[in-house]
């Protein structure tokens, strides 16, 4: 095998490991959920993993991600601690937010995962502010900020785009367009499906991908991040993707009436976890799968074993 082939094989294995880790983690969360041990709303990204995985694969440890309440994928793809995440969902003191944040407020400052917010759009200006600090300090770091098609409608997101472009900040804006905000389709919320074009008018290099193919996402992100590192100002990617489960909670909801399983079918047929998995030699894939299962089992056990925070914790961290 020549160098390039090795690199490609390494990449596929890396991407697969990340995709599979997120998928299986969330599937296990969905299994545990009915037992009511996870006492906080969960927004699964099953079906959308490739966006976070493709983007985070081109980020270094010093680079930063900002996710949302649907943040498991970004957190894990960036290297966030799985044990700490699971403990967080269980409300335990070893959680990444000591049990105070739950699934919607994952954070891992050591891995440069900025805290996630449950108010749609509200994390975007914060991510931009982080990028401002990076630029002021002349650091060679970039921020990837994920948000949904719904978030793109919030005033503060437009304001953030303008400011980031004005100051040429190193932000990769990634709009995960899954076509829905909760149960409302784009057609009830967008006057025109021209988001990428709109973002470009801020002088931002803006691109809309055709699918959430993880290699395509990765390639676009790589190009974008290179531009950011060159100081060219922010970059925007709109990635079409699809949420397979209900908006919040562990189940499917194709019988709810707002969308059909038919609509989902092509996305499922193009499942990125399967696609990338199929590129690997079976034994390599099996090894990854086994490692992933073991890691998740360990994280679940860790979460179970971790104690709840002590009553005194209630009053800790109100002020720094």
């Amino acid at each position: 095998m020549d160098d390039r082939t090795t690199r490609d094989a390494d990449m596929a294995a890396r991407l697969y490991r990340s995709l599979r880790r997120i998928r299986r983690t969330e599937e296990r969360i969905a299994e545990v959920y009915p037992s009511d041990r996870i006492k906080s709303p969960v927004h699964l990204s099953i079906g959308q993993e490739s966006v976070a995985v493709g983007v985070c694969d081109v980020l270094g440890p010093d680079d930063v991600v900002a996710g949302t309440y649907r943040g498991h994928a970004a957190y894990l793809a960036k290297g966030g601690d799985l044990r700490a995440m699971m403990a967080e969902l269980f409300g335990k003191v070893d959680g990444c937010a000591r049990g105070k944040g739950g699934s919607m407020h994952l954070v891992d400052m050591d891995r440069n995962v900025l805290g996630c917010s449950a108010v749609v759009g509200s994390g975007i200006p914060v991510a931009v502010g982080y990028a401002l600090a990076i630029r002021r300090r002349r650091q060679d770091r970039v921020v990837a900020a994920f948000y949904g098609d719904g978030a793109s409608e919030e005033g503060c997101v437009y304001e953030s785009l303008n400011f980031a472009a004005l100051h040429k900040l190193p932000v990769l804006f990634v709009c995960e367009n899954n076509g829905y905000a909760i149960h409302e389709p784009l057609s009830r919320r967008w006057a025109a499906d021209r988001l990428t074009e709109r973002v470009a008018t801020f002088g931002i290099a803006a691109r809309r991908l055709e699918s959430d193919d993880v290699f395509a996402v990765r390639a676009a992100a790589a190009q974008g991040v290179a531009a950011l590192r060159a100081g060219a100002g922010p970059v925007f990617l709109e990635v079409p993707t699809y949420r397979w489960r209900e908006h919040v909670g562990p189940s499917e909801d194709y019988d709810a009436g707002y969308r059909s399983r038919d609509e989902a079918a092509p996305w499922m047929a193009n499942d990125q976890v399967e696609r990338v998995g199929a590129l690997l030699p079976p034994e390599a894939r099996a090894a990854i799968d086994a490692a992933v299962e073991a890691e998740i089992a360990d994280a679940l056990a860790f979460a179970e074993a971790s104690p709840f925070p002590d009553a005194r914790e209630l009053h800790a961290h109100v002020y720094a």
Partner: protein
Amino acid sequence: MSTPERTLRYVDALREALVQEMDRDPDVFVFGLDVDDHKGIQGSTLGLAERFGPERCFTTPLSEDAMTGVAIGAAVAGMRPVHVHIRMDFLMLCMNQLVNMAAKTHYMYGGAAKVPLVVRSMIGKSWGQGAQHSQGLHAMFMHVPGLKVVAPSNAHDAKGCLIAAIRDDNPVIFMEHRLLYPLEAPVPEEPYTVPLGQARRMTRGDDITIVGVSNMAMECLRAEELLRDVGIGVDLIDPVSLVPLDIDTIAGSARRTRRLLVVDNGWITAGAGAEIAAAVAERLGPEGPLTVRRMGFAPTTCPTTPALERLFYPNPATIAETAHAMVRPGGPAWSPAPERAELAYQRSFKGPF
């Protein structure tokens, strides 16, 4: 012989109020994120879009700030919008329109325009709603002249207050509580209004006046039962509306008991409880000793873990303990038996309405 009264859940009472007002007045419309989906704001807007069409019940883009302005503009034009938010926390996105525009329009234009607007929002609680999905921020709205603030604690008042709010010519912040939605109470079928600015006495007693806001009125009702066990009589008052506030009823009661405990569904500092306690102290303080206490959210952000969330909120036991200590300050400490407190927790309010 009285016919058996119909009971309705809080959530259905809200929906009935909307249906009846939309039937009555074509200018009434309901909008806000997700009001027209199959969950219909936990059922409170279910079926409206089908019944009244997409012009009178529709979702919006995620643009709370502008949508509030849109509601104000439609109201100035003479319509009567009901703008719905699934969490009160999201009102922070529209504070500019609510505080700087809606509250001020009538006054700053010298009466030339008015804003008959209802802003419904629900307070979240339990199952780890957390920092940004659990706040009761009514105090901020109480603070600003020009806004009314309503917080019904039972199905009967939910319907009557919502109808009153829709018919009111002013912006009304209408505060609901997630945990109240399934609770039933007798609710007349025909449309009726519950006047804004009239408190409701839930129980009578001579030892202490307790005021419970929103869901806390229910928690206080359960505390009253526990206190009754130990011979403490509670004058329990649900203010129903916070602006206008029926301070006369509250102060009248406290003049008799000389003890006032306000239990709020929000933070204590500069909160509704501060207002009620201060107003009562202004009136009654000079007359003699007066024991005043406030309870509410712990002075922290709301944590998700149940281990801490439990401690964040007042509950029947902590309310009863606090009241007990106020009534018998020198006596031995007392806590209700846990099983008893658990049982009291089942109680719901059947009137007097």
